[in-house]
């Protein structure tokens, strides 16, 4: 049994954490949010330079890490520092490229020359129905894509998209370049900071990644890696909220005593601390599962997302509540951590979805 991350990973964590704290503290982040771009490319580039993206991928694929615990370290710091950038999309898209041995593309992303994102979720119209899956047609040597994807992270800023096409077990993945003919992006800010967009393809030229109609399992594992990332990001945010709340309970006085003296709050603080530890364990389980691969990866990833959904909401809501009015303000960091934590619940499926998936995967395992 060994729960340590290893010195190298700790060094990486320290350097990412220090960079974010020094260069991208609370105030700098608020400034970036208020800027016309709505995020900080500079902070993103700085993190890439320190190896945040390289650590996500194996050496053979053009990175210098690639294990689940490398991902854990990177996303833990992203959570702690509330970094904005296409990290999650880059990870999942990169994992698809990695599986197909597309090292040249990964190298460009690791080197910071290109921004990569993942277009996987069908767009939804005002009537609440999902758009048809993106359709791929052969055209000469390559393919053309038609269809729409929704809430694609950093769609407008990305240079490259990995796009999921087809449906069910017949999935294929394609690489599309920004500015390709027939590609349109409607960009907007997101509640938790950063950007996303609706992406429409109309006979858009695309290059097949790997084999046609054989991408389902690869995408599943890429999304599982994404869930591991969110589990560690979420866990780090929960730690921050726990610590900030403890600090506030000590320092805020009402009725002449610190509010932490009120047992009504003490017990809830105790529950928060417990649930943070459970979320930590779920994140570890998910990372171990990802290393194992196959069904184990998917099931542990879903388990982590269920835990993250439930415990994350609890931490976010309790942290705001125990801070009173101050917890509701824009200037005070607690609200931004809470917003990101809640919005993690809106990425890659919510806890209800993953609870069902956990049940279904369990049946598959038993069968």
């Amino acid at each position, binding site marked *: 049994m060994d729960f340590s991350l290893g010195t190298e990973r700790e060094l990486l964590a320290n350097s990412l954490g220090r960079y974010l704290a020094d260069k991208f503290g609370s105030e700098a982040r608020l400034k970036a949010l208020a800027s016309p771009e709505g995020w900080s490319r500079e902070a993103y580039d700085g993190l890439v330079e320190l190896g945040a993206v390289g650590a996500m991928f194996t050496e053979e694929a053009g990175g210098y890490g690639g294990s689940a615990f490398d991902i854990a370290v990177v996303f833990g710091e992203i959570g702690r520092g509330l970094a904005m950038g296409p990290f999650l999309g880059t990870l999942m898209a990169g994992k698809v490229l990695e599986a197909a041995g597309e090292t040249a593309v990964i190298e460009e992303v690791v080197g910071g020359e290109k921004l990569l994102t993942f277009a996987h979720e069908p767009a939804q119209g005002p009537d*609440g129905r999902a758009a048809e899956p993106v359709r791929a047609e052969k055209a000469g040597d390559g393919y053309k894509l038609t269809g729409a994807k929704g809430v694609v992270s950093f769609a407008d800023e990305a240079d490259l998209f990995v796009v999921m096409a087809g449906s069910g077990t017949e999935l294929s993945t394609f690489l599309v370049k920004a500015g390709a003919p027939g590609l349109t992006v409607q960009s907007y800010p997101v509640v938790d900071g950063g950007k996303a967009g609706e992406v429409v393809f109309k006979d858009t030229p695309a290059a097949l990644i790997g084999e046609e109609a054989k991408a389902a399992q690869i995408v599943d594992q890429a999304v599982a890696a994404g869930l591991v990332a969110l589990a560690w990001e979420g866990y780090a945010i929960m730690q921050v909220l726990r610590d900030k709340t403890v600090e506030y309970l000590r320092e805020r006085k009402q009725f002449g005593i610190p509010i932490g003296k009120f047992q009504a709050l003490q017990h809830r603080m105790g529950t928060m601390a417990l649930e943070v530890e459970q979320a930590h364990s779920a994140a570890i389980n998910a990372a171990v599962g990802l290393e194992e691969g196959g069904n184990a990866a998917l099931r542990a990833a879903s388990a982590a997302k269920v835990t993250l959904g439930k415990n994350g909401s609890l931490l976010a809501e309790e942290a705001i509540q125990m801070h009173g009015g101050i917890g509701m303000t824009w200037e005070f960091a607690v609200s931004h951590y809470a917003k990101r934590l809640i919005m993690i619940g809106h990425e890659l499926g919510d806890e209800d979805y993953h609870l069902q998936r956990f049940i279904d995967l369990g049946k598959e395992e038993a069968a």
Partner: protein
Amino acid sequence: MDLKFSPEDQAFREEVRAFLKEKLPQRLSDKVRKGQHLSKADMEEWHAILHERGWLAPHWPVEHGGTDWSVMQRFIFETEIAMAHAPRVVPFGVSMLGPVLLKYGSEEQKNHWLPRILDGSDWWCQGYSEPGAGSDLASLKTKAVREGDHYIVNGQKTWTTLGQHANMIFCLVRTNSEGKKQEGISFLLIDMNTPGVELRPIKLLDGDYEVNEVFFTDVKVPVENLVGEENKGWTYAKYLLTYERTNIAGVGASMAAFKVLKEAASMQFRNGKPLIEDPRFAARLAQLEIDLENMKTTNLRVLDAAGHGKAPGAESSMLKIRGTEIRQEISDLMRRAAGSYARPFIEASFEEGYNGEPVGPAFAGPVASDYFNYRKLSIFGGSNEVQREIITKSMLGL
């Protein structure tokens, strides 16, 4: 025991519906339904429409421009206007200061201030909380010192909702620093245009601007703006808070919001099926509906007791707790219903007349902002923790 509407109640409901159909501007109900921001002018417009009909302050006595409605009628009115997506009546004048003046104000004060609330001459805001005095409101420090026929006020209030629209603020001020802290508080009406009053906005987590800090530096307030007796303000303040709490419970607003939630869940597709058919989501919706039905009856029971002259005490705390929990749960399910589309944050779409390309399901635009904004419901009006204390104190007597 009979919870059915009498024929008179039915007729009354029809009357309210007819009024709403004729008088509630579509423009306003559209904005409310879409969760768009209401401007000061929007709120004033709706107040004026209600006032014209004599329905702006139904809970006031008839001689001051109120009504003689029964408890049931008031409940019907509240739910019908909420279900029609009418703007909420701004509570500070009508539902907070009004009842205090009616009970504790002088005849002169009633005759001067009450009509001005109704006709919109004054927009009131509430100056209770201070940076150091939140849950422990009685520890407030803003000081008023009598000098001749004026008070000189110094100090700071905070979290003042819609203070940016207000010209008047009712304040709790300290007039005596000795003895029990509750016994040195007075209730003072302050004109915000007096020299020395300064307002600073506070941005909330949803990016919106609805609360403020208010600073007082040597502000001169005429003594006739003291309500009731000096150092008796705590009694009036607490009386006001029971009204505030019942108002925050917002059963009518929850009924309207629940309907919107159900529509959203019927329309939204998840994994190829309407979300409302998802067993987990359906279970949460059903639980919410059960809680809301129970709450409706609890609310009517409290109103009924109040109608028979029993002042609401712990009951108003119960309404506040469960009412706000229900409203928060509705906003929680709304955001969950939107899935990934809870994340887009298109601020321009919260304003009237936005005609940008729609993003995602039609209901999704404001759901995340509403969810975060509604965290306030369990904090203000006395936090839900404090309400639980009030309830148990009234029972334990320890």
